[in-house]
């Protein structure tokens, strides 16, 4: 059971894709918590399962993919719990709901909203911005067409779209990418969600637009007090907006902590390597940028034990490549999944090595 200040708790989530070539374990035992009213950034390389984790939350995994194990505990606060639910804000396991169920449909767009990577492709070209905006409003809120349109116009104004009345009748392909993403944000905010999942919302946009969209999201988060799960691979963005950071590697969470803990006291070798590979201006700018050696293993052929051990400089032979690493808790919710921070296991391993060495001689 999650703590009261936790909005969403993911426990042991496994989302696998059953392809003809084999099973791709896109999400393989993810544990993470989203605190209420905070911004949590999920970072990691492409293909580490960030997006799939987010999609699993909303039941958006399509065949051949499937959530095979784990729980997604969603705890709406008492005053926000929809009438259809138990009413006392008891946590619901989203992973247990059928992806086509009415209950999950009611949560989508109303309690948990999501924005996507390609804003232009995420809006249907066949309908105007206003159609798609008011459709969402009227699906979840008891409003007539007029009220929904007025609400829509005020939302467009709020996300900084100039002349919102005219823009309501524009088609998505008549707008720029940045404008489309603002429209997506307006749709996402339309029903006052408790959680906004932003799946790399600025990847497809140019740099100046990126900055504006991120400022807008940060401001809206502060204004509404909603939680935000922000998926990105841009550590600069993370430093700017995150309260908490989740670092993912190959379908697992390797480290979660506050933004200070992650940036100033990273525990996992992967987090450290990731931070070391941020280009810096000025100091040492003429040096070669450190990179993580090797490559992400192919999805069908995951290494046993800790998924990071083939690339890890600190890997312990005979330990990291055989057993799953333990999760180690530090103070204030900072935790990592690495054996180096588990002195007991390390000691036992050393003793075992010494013993086998003695037996050999």
């Amino acid at each position, binding site marked *: 059971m999650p703590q009261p200040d936790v909005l969403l708790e993911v426990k042991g989530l496994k989302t696998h894709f059953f392809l003809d070539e084999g099973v791709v374990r896109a999400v393989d035992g993810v544990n993470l918590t989203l605190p209420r009213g905070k911004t949590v950034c999920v970072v990691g390389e492409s293909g580490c399962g960030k997006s799939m984790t987010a*999609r699993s939350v*909303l039941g*958006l995994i399509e065949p051949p993919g499937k959530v095979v194990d784990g729980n997604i505990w969603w705890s709406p606060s008492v005053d926000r719990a929809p009438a259809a639910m138990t009413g006392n804000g008891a946590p619901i396991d989203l992973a247990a709901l059928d992806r*086509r169920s009415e209950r999950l*449909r*009611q*949560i*989508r*767009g*109303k309690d948990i*909203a*999501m924005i*996507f*990577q*390609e804003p232009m*492709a*995420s*809006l*249907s*070209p*066949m*309908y*105007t911005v206003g159609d*798609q905006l008011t*459709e*969402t409003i009227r*699906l*979840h809120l008891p409003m007539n067409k007029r009220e929904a349109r007025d609400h829509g116009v005020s939302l467009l104004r709020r996300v900084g779209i100039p002349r919102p009345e005219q823009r309501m009748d524009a*088609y998505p*392909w*008549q707008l720029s990418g940045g404008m489309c993403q603002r429209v*997506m944000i307006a*749709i996402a905010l339309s029903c006052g969600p408790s959680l906004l999942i932003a799946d790399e919302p600025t990847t497809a946009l140019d740099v100046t637009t990126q900055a504006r969209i991120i400022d807008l999201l940060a401001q809206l988060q502060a204004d509404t007090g909603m939680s935000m799960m922000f998926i990105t691979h841009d550590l600069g963005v993370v430093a700017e907006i995150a309260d908490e950071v989740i670092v993912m590697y190959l379908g697992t969470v390797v480290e979660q902590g506050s933004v200070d803990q992650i940036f100033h006291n990273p525990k996992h070798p992967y987090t450290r390597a990731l931070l070391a590979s941020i280009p810096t201006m000025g100091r040492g700018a003429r040096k070669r940028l450190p990179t993580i050696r090797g490559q992400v293993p192919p999805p069908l052929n995951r290494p046993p034990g800790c998924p990071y051990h083939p690339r890890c400089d600190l890997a312990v032979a005979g330990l990291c490549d055989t057993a799953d690493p333990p999760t180690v808790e530090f103070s204030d919710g900072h935790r990592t999944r690495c054996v180096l921070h588990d002195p007991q296991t390390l000691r036992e391993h050393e003793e075992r090595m010494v013993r086998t060495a003695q037996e050999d001689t």
Partner: protein
Amino acid sequence: MLSFIARRLLYMVPTLVLISIVAFAIIQLPPGDFLTTFIARMSAQGEAIDQAQIDSLRERYGLDEPIYVQYFKWIGGIVTDLDFGQSFEWKRSVADLVWDRLPLTVLLAGATLTLTWILAFPIGIYSAVKQYSIGDYLATTIGYLGLAIPNFMIALILLYIGFRYFGQSVGGLFSPEYQDAAWNLGKVLDLLSHIWIPLIVLGTAGTAGLIRILRANLLDELRKPYVVAARARGVPERRLLVRYPLRVAMNPFISTIGWVLPALVGGEVIVAKVLSLPTTGPLMLSALTSQDMYLAGSIIMIISVLTVVGTLISDIALAWLDPRVRLRRH
């Protein structure tokens, strides 16, 4: 929208002029003309025609004039008073001949199109939404069979079944006793008992093709990000399917209007021959073989007009359905 239609109507004029010239020229391409074919046939039957008779015929039909004069006579008649000229072979006006056959042809075309849509639409959607299900495999198999078996083959098989097991008078659209009768309930029922064979024969390939197209298009659309985004907004599944991907995938249905009409009026000659259907296809075939040039040219002209008009209708429908077609400047 109005300027779009006006522009398209304007484009039709040069298109049709070009088609008429090309059609007329191609009909004239084979050596000789209707009279040489006629004389050859006559002498094969052992009848001699003297030179004076030939000359008078040649003069009467205007065959000794240069080709461009013939063309302008013909096209002038069509444009000024819809006179398509005379058929040499039938000794009747082309307009009468075509008019005899056109209503049933259009009826058959319309019925085939409707049947094709009614069948292809739900099956195509089912095939895409339930991809790789047993139903999808079944639809795919039947679809491939429908595409692969030549239409005249299906026609022969159905004729055999109709004759052998249902004791029907096969071929044509009417039983002999109703052939020349005036329209009454009996004749309509007789028509209904005959029309299913050409309907199935003409409909199978189109239906199969459309199922495959709709399935492929819908599968493409179902994977687009806007579908996932709409689902993430809480749009119910059925509404989502109809409102979002299906509307885009509908386009091929609209486009079919453009080519199904000319295909049924002019094409399907073999099927029409096998089933001895009183449609315009066989008429055009015989006109071409006997170099009955005004008849052949006029049918080609009518088919062309139908094609161009059909394309215009489907384009207007497409513009109405798809704002990208309507509003984007090219």
